[in-house]
């Protein structure tokens, strides 16, 4: 499946992409956010959180592993950066914790076998220019539920 790709020129613009995505999420959704350190994963999630009405400042859960926020939906924000083994990931009990929440997993692709195939993958890459603030953001929806929303993802990003 081809995703939707946009270019952002600042953290604020990356935040806007997150905020634009917020209109498409439902409880039970899974969003996997992928990109190197400093690529803007948490920045994207901050925009998403604002978009679902979360006023609290979203910070990276690298050390706390998981944080929960409540807006128009419950948002469970997970970062697996400090996890090594699948067992540790399973020990989070996300299927219960995030059952009726939107589950956002930073670095989630390393745990792909333990997350539903039905999800939105957000990939952040620096560039393509040498501008250190520029990012290429690709949003790829897979599975029956998210797959049907790929066009809506494109439309929401166009309208941002």
């Amino acid at each position: 499946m081809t995703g939707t790709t946009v270019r952002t020129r600042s953290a604020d613009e990356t935040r806007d992409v997150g905020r634009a995505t917020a209109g498409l999420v439902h409880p039970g959704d899974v969003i996997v956010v992928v990109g190197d350190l400093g690529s803007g994963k948490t920045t994207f999630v901050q925009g998403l959180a604002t978009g679902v009405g979360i006023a609290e400042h979203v910070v990276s859960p690298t050390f706390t592993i998981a944080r929960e926020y409540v807006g128009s939906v419950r948002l469970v924000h997970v970062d697996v950066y400090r996890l090594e083994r699948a067992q540790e990931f399973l020990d989070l009990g996300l299927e219960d914790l995030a059952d009726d929440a939107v589950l956002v997993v930073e670095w989630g692709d390393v745990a792909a076998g333990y997350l539903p195939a039905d999800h939105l993958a957000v990939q952040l890459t620096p560039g393509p220019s040498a501008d250190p603030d520029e990012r290429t953001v690709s949003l790829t929806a897979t599975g029956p539920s998210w797959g049907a929303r790929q066009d809506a993802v494109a439309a929401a990003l166009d309208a941002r």
Partner: protein
Amino acid sequence: MTLLLAMDTATPRVAVAIGEDARVLGSVYLDARRRHAEVLVPAVASLCEQTGVELRQLDAVAVGVGPGLFTGLRVGVTTAKVMGQALDVPVVAVSSLDLVAHPLRFAGRTIAAVLDARRHEVFHAQYRPGPDGVELVTEYRVGPAAELVTELAAGGEDVVLAGDGVRTNRAAFESLRRAVDAGQEFEAPSATALVELAARRVARQEFAASFEVAPLYLRASDAELAWGNRR
């Protein structure tokens, strides 16, 4: 005579029974949602009181080890292991899917035990019915409900569906022509079945040391996460 405590917490419904050999002295089912830790031990205490059984009289503890929802499963398995150690009695581990299938052993058709794994996925296994019990004919598996439906449709057998995963994925299962739904009564793993199945194992001395008992995860939990050289 063997006194047995049986507990299953693989689903939002906590099931507890106390058995004298294979005979159930009492059982209780409580909708715990996510509050398994708060519900389980008081339920055990209350059932002990009602049946006049004291914990120190127990000869074995039986536990449903899933597959099932992690939060609940952890509570049940940990409680069983702690009781096993504290009381110095063996722990008998039985799959929670077996506990869904066993009450349907007289159904006369293939039994598909289906427990909710959230997000349109189910834990499932199929069984051949028999008067003495059910026989597992597949592995314990986890996957999209839609995949199980496709597989059952292709198999073309008459099948009875049981477990809470049928209700939570009703739209997927409704398309199956040769399937009947066992309904609410058979939704949760049966504590009565656990007493029966565990009593047989105790009689055959088929039990593990309590520290060897672990939840059935199905998703390979001993693997490394796929970091490659990215960190």
